């Protein structure tokens, strides 16, 4: 038993632990998700995060120790943002043809998500730096952090809000869309990519190819629009 504890202490202090735990738990969560026929509530990211958090708490592993391994996965977010050029390029002709509709929907949706977050937060009496961290929440985490930094929010919190927003979208969007009714997959995917970024898009990619392509497109458009417009808008306040 003593040996086992020593071995655990050694292993959990190396980057190997964070990386292995992340991949292993995610692979299991994905398998379960497929088994449950991709039910939105069985979202693999949600359950992987909860399981890992529980694991860290129970074993008393501090987050920086975990992150020393998980950073290798986290790092890939940057190249993944660059990779969004591919779905954009692929649907280039379609995008140009529908450019007006797409940009207008992305602007309206982005403004509605960001504006309502700040308005509701303000009405509920949240402090200004929290509101500034809420504004970029529909953008993918690393970009949201960059924007928050520029407009005087707290980058780490912006990342937290972005992830929570993505999870809320991925888990609940299907029920909302079914409630609105008569929405084609492309429209559903585009809304997911616009209002809940990568996590929403990931859900769309898993469910339907058309929805996935439009979600990737929405992600790229939303990234560009919010990175360009957010600092300008925050400048006025």
């Amino acid at each position, binding site marked *: 038993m003593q040996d086992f504890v020593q071995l655990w202490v050694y292993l959990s202090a190396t980057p190997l632990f964070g990386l292995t735990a992340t991949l292993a738990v995610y692979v299991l969560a994905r398998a379960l998700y497929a088994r449950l026929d991709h039910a939105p509530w069985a979202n693999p*990211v949600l359950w992987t995060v909860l399981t890992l958090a529980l694991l860290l708490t129970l074993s008393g592993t501090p987050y920086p120790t975990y992150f020393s391994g998980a950073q290798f996965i986290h790092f890939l977010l940057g190249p993944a943002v660059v990779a969004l050029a591919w779905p954009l390029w692929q649907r280039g002709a379609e995008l140009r043809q*529908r450019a007006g509709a797409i940009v207008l929907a992305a602007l309206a*949706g982005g403004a509605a998500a960001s504006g309502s977050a700040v308005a509701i*937060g303000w009405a509920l009496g949240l402090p200004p730096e929290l509101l500034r961290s809420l504004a970029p929440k529909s953008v993918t985490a690393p970009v949201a952090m960059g924007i928050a930094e520029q407009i005087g929010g707290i980058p780490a919190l912006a990342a*937290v809000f972005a992830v929570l927003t993505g999870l809320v979208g991925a888990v609940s969007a299907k029920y909302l869309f079914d409630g*609105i009714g008569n929405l084609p997959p492309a429209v559903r995917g585009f809304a997911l990519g616009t209002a809940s970024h990568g996590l929403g898009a990931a859900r769309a*990619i898993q469910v339907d190819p058309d929805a996935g392509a439009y979600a990737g497109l929405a992600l790229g458009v939303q990234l560009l629009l919010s990175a360009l417009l957010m600092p300008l808008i925050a400048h006025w306040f």
Partner: protein
Amino acid sequence: MDALSGLAWLLLCQSAGEAAARLLHLRLPGPVIGLLILLVLLRWTLVRKPVEAAADALLAHLSLLFVPVGVGVMTHMGLVSQYGIRLLVALVLSTWIGLAVTAVVLRAMLRGKT
């Protein structure tokens, strides 16, 4: 092999983007500038074929990439729980509003066109 050189292209574009953001004091984040650079480079088959393999692999597992940040949410729960319910209300409601507005606007626009 394709996926590997594709990843090299992605990293090159990201690096160029980061460099451009710093040197030119642009407000866009480095990876977003990298996306724009890649969008231009994709005209060439030499770039397109490897990037396709790498991008498909990366984007298929996009949700995995959010796990480390997600676990980090737990370490910031102190700040989040301080404003707990109010913050959650703002987050959830605004996400639904954003989803609904985007979907309804796009549907209306596409309908008007056809």
